[in-house]
């Protein structure tokens, strides 16, 4: 599965509804609704996603709003514009990214604090 080339939703494509499946997926177009993907989802700079997303890994370079739940990691890259509540073990926000919302990683604090 991991060796298959990623699926691509190109610039001229708009999807409204539920999207689910396995394998890697790259979104360059527009998706509204719900996305549930087993593997790696990438929202490219031209991509616009208004959806709740569940995936293993998520990389955002475009525009995204909705809730995110990732089992591995979420990377919000420099030109991304994201409004979301995120739950994931690893969340990376790069300099230049626009983000608004909640981040929930499991945080272990030293003893004696809170």
């Amino acid at each position: 599965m991991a060796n298959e080339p990623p699926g691509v939703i190109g610039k001229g494509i708009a999807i409204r509804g539920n999207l689910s499946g396995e394998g890697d997926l790259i979104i360059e177009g527009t998706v509204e609704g719900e996305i549930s993907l087993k593997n790696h989802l990438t929202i490219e700079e031209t991509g616009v996603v208004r959806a709740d997303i569940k995936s293993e890994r998520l990389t955002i370079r475009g525009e995204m709003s909705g809730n995110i739940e990732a089992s591995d990691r979420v990377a919000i890259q420099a030109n991304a514009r994201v409004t979301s509540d995120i739950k994931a073990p690893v969340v990376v926000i790069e300099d230049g990214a626009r983000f608004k919302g909640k981040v929930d990683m499991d945080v272990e604090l030293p003893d004696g604090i809170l």
Partner: protein
Amino acid sequence: MANVIGKSIVIDGEISGDEDLVVQGTVKGKIMLKESLLVESSGTVEADIQTQNVEISGAVTGDIQAFSKVEIKSDGRVVGNIKAPRILIADGAKFKGNVDMDR
């Protein structure tokens, strides 16, 4: 000449000033600075923070407001809400709370 709160120092109260501050020890209460705050990996801060810049490699609980930038480095652990025009979270950092980048 950096201001340093060393590893064996515990402060319970309010810190304010217009110079950079490095925290290697423990601060509880409130920190208000016109310049930058650096919480090193040995540092523990349980305080609301209001500064120009914050760079965190240690542990912070509390709300953070920065006028320029908040940076959570890969060793940093933060629980609280962050409000700043620029917010960076490095790979490996742990964070729980709200992020507000409105300008």
